[in-house]
C-alpha cells in the first residue's frame, strides 16, 4: 500500500481520539472573587488553571462589586454550576444571594473554600457551618471549639480565646490524617508543602467535618506547637465542601500554590465536592516527606516531556524527571505495550548525541531490569564510551547478555 494512504488512514483513525481529548469538561465551576485581604488577582487565575488542568472542569471567574459597592447586583445563578470556589473575603452578599447559595449547597452543590476564604462572613451562620473552621473577624469561643490533633487524637478544645493566626511562612510537613477519604486516599502519609502561611487556632462549628490533613505549627516559626488542620471535608445538606487552608498566593501562585501537594489536593477536593468521587490518579510528582515539589507552570509534566527534559539533565540540579520516568515504568507494570513504548524512549536517550552521560546512566539503570532484546545493541555500543562503560556493563550483565 502506498505510504500516503497509510498516513491518511492513520490520520482518520486519530481524529476521534483527538476529539476525545478535546471533549468539553463535564463540570462547570464558578470561582467567586473580587474582594479579599489577599491578592485575589494573583490567586484566582491560578485556581482556575488548577481546576481546568484536570480536564474535568470548565471555569468561570466572577468578581463581586468592589468593597462598599452594591451587592444587590451580585447574584450568580449557582444552579448552573457543579462547583463554586470561594476566593473571597469581603462585604456580605445580599440576603437573596446568601439564601440561594445555601439552597445550592443543600441541594447537592459542591464548594471549595480556599485559604483566606475561611475568614469570610463571620456572621453568616450557614456559611460557617459549611466551612467548619474559620478565623479572625472577631471569631472566638462563641463560634465553636479549637480543633487540632494531639498524637493520633482529634481534640475539640472549648477554651476561651480568639480564632485565627499564623506564624512566619515556611515550608512544612503535612500529615495525611484520613487515608480512607476519596480526596486523600493513596496520598503519602507525610509530605512537604511549599513555603506557606500555616493557619492555626481556627474555630468553628466543626460539624459533619472530617480533618483530612494537619501540619505541625512549629513554635520556632511562631506556631502554636499543635497539629493544626489544613484540609477539611464537610457535608452540608446534600452538598459537599472541601476547605483547603493552604495556598497563600504569590507571583505565579508562589511556592504555596505551585506546590504539587496543594494543586493535587485542590483538584481532588474539587472533584469530590462536585461529584462525590475522585477519579484522578495521584501523579508521580506528588511530594513526599523527603522534599517539596513545585510545579512552576502549575501544569503536570507529561512522561513525554520528562524524556525531553532528561536529555539535558544535570544531576546537580534535579533528578526529578528521572523519578517521574521511574514512576511511569512502575505504573506501566503488566502492560507490555506501554513498557515497550517506554523502552523505546529510553533507547532514544541512549542514542541522542545531545543527551548527557548522567541521563544515559539513569536510562541504563532502568533498562537493566525492564529492557528487552530491543535495547541490547544500543547498550553494547555504549560499552566503548569510557564514562558509560561501567553502567553499560552493569545493564548487560543484568539482562543476561
Amino acid at each position, binding site marked *: 500500500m502506498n505510504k500516503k494512504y497509510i498516513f491518511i488512514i492513520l490520520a482518520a483513525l486519530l481524529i476521534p481520539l483527538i476529539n476525545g481529548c478535546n471533549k468539553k469538561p463535564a463540570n462547570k465551576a464558578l470561582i467567586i472573587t473580587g474582594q479579599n485581604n489577599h491578592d485575589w488577582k494573583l490567586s484566582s487565575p491560578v485556581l482556575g488553571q488548577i481546576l481546568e488542568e484536570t480536564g474535568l472542569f470548565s471555569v468561570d471567574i466572577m468578581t463581586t462589586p468592589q468593597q462598599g459597592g452594591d451587592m444587590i447586583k451580585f447574584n450568580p445563578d449557582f444552579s448552573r454550576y457543579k462547583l463554586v470556589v470561594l476566593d473571597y473575603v469581603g462585604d456580605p452578599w445580599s440576603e437573596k444571594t446568601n439564601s440561594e447559595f445555601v439552597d445550592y449547597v443543600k441541594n447537592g452543590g459542591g464548594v471549595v473554600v480556599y485559604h483566606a476564604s475561611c475568614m469570610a462572613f463571620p456572621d453568616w451562620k450557614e456559611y460557617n457551618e459549611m466551612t467548619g473552621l474559620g478565623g479572625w473577624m472577631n471569631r472566638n469561643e462563641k463560634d465553636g471549639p479549637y480543633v487540632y490533633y494531639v498524637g493520633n487524637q482529634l481534640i475539640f478544645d472549648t477554651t476561651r480565646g480568639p480564632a485565627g493566626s499564623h506564624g512566619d511562612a515556611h515550608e512544612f510537613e503535612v500529615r495525611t490524617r484520613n487515608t480512607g477519604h476519596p480526596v486523600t486516599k493513596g496520598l*503519602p502519609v*507525610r509530605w512537604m508543602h511549599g513555603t506557606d502561611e500555616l493557619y492555626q487556632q481556627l474555630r468553628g462549628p466543626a460539624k459533619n467535618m472530617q480533618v483530612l490533613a494537619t501540619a505541625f505549627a512549629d513554635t520556632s516559626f511562631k506556631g502554636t506547637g499543635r497539629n493544626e488542620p489544613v484540609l477539611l471535608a464537610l457535608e452540608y445538606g446534600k452538598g459537599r465542601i472541601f476547605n483547603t487552608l493552604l495556598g497563600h498566593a504569590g507571583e505565579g501562585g508562589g511556592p504555596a500554590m505551585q506546590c504539587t501537594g496543594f494543586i493535587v489536593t485542590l483538584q481532588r477536593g474539587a472533584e469530590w465536592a462536585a461529584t462525590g468521587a475522585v477519579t484522578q490518579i495521584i501523579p508521580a510528582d506528588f511530594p*513526599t516527606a*523527603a522534599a517539596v515539589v513545585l510545579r512552576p507552570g502549575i501544569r503536570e509534566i507529561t512522561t513525554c516531556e520528562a524524556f525531553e527534559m532528561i536529555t539535558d539533565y544535570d544531576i546537580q540540579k534535579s533528578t526529578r524527571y528521572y*523519578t517521574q520516568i521511574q514512576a511511569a515504568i512502575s505504573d506501566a*507494570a503488566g502492560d507490555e505495550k506501554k513498557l515497550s513504548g517506554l523502552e523505546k524512549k529510553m533507547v532514544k536517550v541512549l542514542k541522542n548525541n545531545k543527551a548527557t552521560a548522567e541521563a544515559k546512566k539513569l536510562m541504563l539503570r532502568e533498562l537493566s531490569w525492564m529492557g528487552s532484546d530491543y535495547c541490547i545493541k544500543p547498550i553494547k555500543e555504549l560499552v566503548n564510551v569510557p564514562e558509560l562503560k*561501567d553502567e553499560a556493563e*552493569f545493564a548487560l550483565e*543484568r539482562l543476561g547478555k
Partner: protein
Amino acid sequence: MSEKTSRREFIRRSAVIAAGAFVIPEIIPSPAMGMGGRTAPSDRVVIGAIGTGSQGMANMRDFLRLKDAVQFVAVCDVDSARLNRAKMMADNANKNQDCRTYADFREFLEKETPDAVSIALPDHWHGIIYTEAVNKKLHVYGEKPISRTIKDGQTIVEAVKKNNIIWQTGSWQRSQAHFHRGAELVINGRIGKISKIVVGLPDGGRSIGTPPVKEVPPELNWEMWLGPAPKAPYRGVSHWDWRWILDYSGGQLTDWAGHHIDIGNWGAGLEYTGPVEISGKGVYPPEGIYNAPVEYDFTCRYANGIEMRVANASRLEHGMGTTWYGDLGWIHTDRGNVLTASNPEILKEVIGENEIHLYKSQNHWQNFVDCVRSGNQAIAPIEPAYRAISVALLGEMAMATGETIRWDPDKEEIIDNPRAARLLSRPYRKPWTLPTV
C-alpha cells in the same frame, strides 16, 4: 573434624593449662591475665573487627563490656581515622599497643587467624566480605541486613552451612526479654491461629538534594568504600547516610527488616520460609541522591495463608514494631520494653513445660561468645536473617516494578516474571565478584 573445631578445642585445653600460668604464644598479649581467678586470655575468643564505623564500634564496645569474653587483635576499615579509633579501643582493653590494623579486608583475612570476626559494613559490601570471612572458617557476628540482594544472601547462607561456623546476626532484639516473650506467647497459640502480622518500620527522612562533588577526605579510601557498587563521585555522603542510597542499601525498610520482620517471623514460625506473593507501593523522594523509599506499604502472603504487611510506622495503627493478629486477639511489641495485647490477661499466661520454648538469650554478644566456645547455634542464625531481609527485598522489588511478585520460598526463585528476577542480584563493578562457596 574441621580445622576450626580442633582449634577451638586447642583453645579450651589451653585454658586449663593457663590456669597453671603457662603462657601460650602467638596470640596472647604480654600482660598475661590468667592468674588471680580470672579467665585466662587464651580462653577468650580472639576476635577481629571489619568495619569500625558507628555500628562496628558499638559492637566492639558491647563485646568488651562482657567480662573476659573477647580479645580484639586486629581491626580493619577503609577510613584511617575510624580505624585508629578502633585500635585505641582494642589497645585500651588489651592494655597494650598490639592491635593490628588493616585498610584492606583481603589482607586482614589473609594474615589474621582469629576465632571470630565482628563485621559491620554498608550493605553493598556484605555479599563479598561475609562470604570470604565464612570461607576462611571464621565465626561471624554480622550486622543486619544480611545482604543487599537475595543472590548475595543465598551465597552467604550457603557458605555458612558449608563451613559449619557459628553465625550471629546483629538482630539483638531477639536477646531482649519482651520481644522473646511476645514471640513465645504467639508461637504457643495464646492469640489463637495467626492470620496477620503487621510490621511497622521507620518513615524515611528529608532529602539533601544533590550536593556538589567534593574532595575525598584524606582518611577515606573512597574507591575501596565503593568497592563492588557502581562508580560514583564523592559528594560528602558515605558513613551512616549510605543507607538512603539504593546502590548501597534500601533505606529504613532494609535497615530495620532484620529487627521487626525477624521478630514477626520468629513468633509466627516463619523464620525458615518466605512469602509466596508480594505486592505493594512505595513513595520515593522526588529527587536528589537519596533515592530509597520514604514510605512503603506492601503485603506478603505466606503459603499457610498468613499475611504480613510491612509499612512505615506513620501508616499504621500501632506504629513501630511487630503486631501479630490471631483469632483470639493481638500482641504488639516494640523497642522500649513495649509488649501490649488486645487483652492484658494474655500477657500473664504461663508457657507450660511441654510447650514451645524459644531460644533464650539475655545478651546478644555474650550469646555469640558462648556459642563460639560451645559450638552451639547462636540465637540469630543465618537463615532466619536471610529470610527476614528477603521479605524486605521482595517488597522493594514489588514496589519498583509495580508488579505482584510470586516467589517460591523453597526453590527461592521468582515465578514467571523475568523482569523482577533480574532484580535478585546487582552486578558488581569490576574487578569485584561474589566469591564462590
